[in-house]
């Protein structure tokens, strides 16, 4: 299974998981709810 990460749509606010490979380059991402490409990865807070 490919690794997944949390993403947030900066258009509609939807949060979701998508496959994520830190080594792969940038990917075209689409919000599953509103189809926007303003999709931001939610990075884990540093402790």
């Amino acid at each position, binding site marked *: 299974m490919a690794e997944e990460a949390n993403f947030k749509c*900066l258009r509609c606010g939807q949060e979701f998981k998508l496959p994520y490979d830190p080594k792969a*380059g*940038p990917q*075209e991402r689409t919000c599953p709810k509103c189809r*926007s490409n*303003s999709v*931001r*990865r939610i990075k884990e807070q540093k402790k």
Partner: protein
Amino acid sequence: MMDVGRHPRIKLFVYSEVEDVSGYVGNFKVKVRKKARYVDENECNACAECAKICPVVVPDEFQMGFSSRKAIYIQLPQAVPSAYVLDMNACLGNNPIACGKCVEVCDKKCIDYDMQDQFIDLEVGAIIVASGMDVYDPTELDEFGYTRFDNVITSMEFERLICAGGPTTGHFIRLSDRETPKTIGFVQCVGSRSERRGNRYCSNICCMNTIKDTVLLKDHYPDIEVKVFYMDLRAFGKGFEDLLRRSRSEGVKYIRGIPGEIYEDSKTKNLILDVENTTTGEVEKHELDMLVLSVGVIPRQDGDLIQKLLTLSRTVDGFFMESHPKLKPVDAPTRGVFFAGCSESPKDVKDSVTQASASASRAGILLSSDRIKVEAITSVIDKDKCTSCGICYQACPFKAIVVDRKAKIPAEVIEAACAGCGTCGAECPFGAVTMKHFTDEQIFPQIDAILEENPQDKIVVFACNWCSYQGGDNAGMSRLQYPATGRIIRTMCSGRVDEQFILYAFSKGAPIVLVSGCHFADCHYIDANRWTQKRVEKLWDKLERKGIRPERLQLEWISAAEGQKFAKVMREIEEMRQKVTPEEIEHTKKVLSDWKPKGAKRRPKKAEVKIEA
């Protein structure tokens, strides 16, 4: 092929690989590795004495493993040059020589175990990529029983079995008992047009290949019963429908439905297929002597290497991407590079020949001119501002920049290779790059003009020339309604949209900024829009750190055909704009009040400049 081999002005490098390509249009330097074949190709007269004596027997790849060859062999009867080659991996060994029988029998003394790979440097003006395709391996589609059942073969294997030059000299047999089958089926779209397994695209050639095969079978064996299982038949080309009619009139049965399961009768080795016939809605059983899987084509597995060597880009399917699907269908985005055949997309012989002829003509035009016109829109680097950091070199999708970081020689743009995306300009941290026709001095005033009056009512939209701007145009031409608050600044590529333009717009009171460009697969500058995405992602973090809502920077990929999408995005963003309060805008302006353009900044210390690997 023979003609090519004999042509006085064509130099053929067989059994060779391209190791390196540098330079640019008109001035490419190519390093070719000519692999050691251990047989002098000029002396060998293909008498075959060596192969006769060679004791090593291995499967013959050309005959799909249906027959065998020796360790010293000729790849195919029509090979050019007509000379033998020694497969050192199969040979009993040359260090020390373990067998040496072939050397003893070769009268012409052309076998040399000490032959080494040679490197040849070429200078060429244009390059045509005709690297072909590979064939889908259907083993993963277990329901078809390929490799489990003797009498299930692929369409490629079928070609060998029916070919006069094949292992059975064209006498068509099934593998379990070497008898000519009385009933045979073809399953279409194996590995093609599937979302789940194999590939999503149509492989283009398999329908016609099967139709041709059925006609061939009926020609050779008029009594054979032939059934074709398909989802759609695509016989769209000149004369194709006629061939399909001929196949039908000769009694070939076309059944609309793909077998769900295939079993083998362990005694007869016949195959039993369960198929839902979608025309009648009935589930049918068919017993066949033999089954051919009409397998799709896939991009070459060494595509990565070719892509890297020539700075090409690929579509999501993995085939090489042309410069423009309609207007420049045989040109690669890298100038001076052209495509022929299936390296660009699956195609049949006729289309491959058409494309190859077009590519040869395009290359010919280029080579016959003393001078070429370069893009007017290229970048120039100010040597005084450049710190030789090399960031622009890394960002340039066309490798059009030379810089020597060690020797601290400032970057320079090779104008003939620069396509004018502007990514270098956006990435240079020192403001050393000027993008002709899209300079900072041209773009900042556009932002000023947009935000001069009532900035709170405006959306600053950066749109790329080829896709998103055209998407906006499309929306307009289709008379689609969308709010008039968006103000567009056109750049050639979204890669040109510098973070400083966005920050400047926010500092001047912009409530929302939209950066838009081509979908990843359509980027006209190979992968320049990946840099846009990276930049926007970094900027979201930066805005958040400064207490500015990252939502105010929007990103969208819109193609020229997506007028609807453009209008929808503008409506959505307008709703967002209305929610940005005057206090929020004031706060942003205050936070960014000390903002200065890049060139005006002090030079960051060396340690502050990070280069991504």
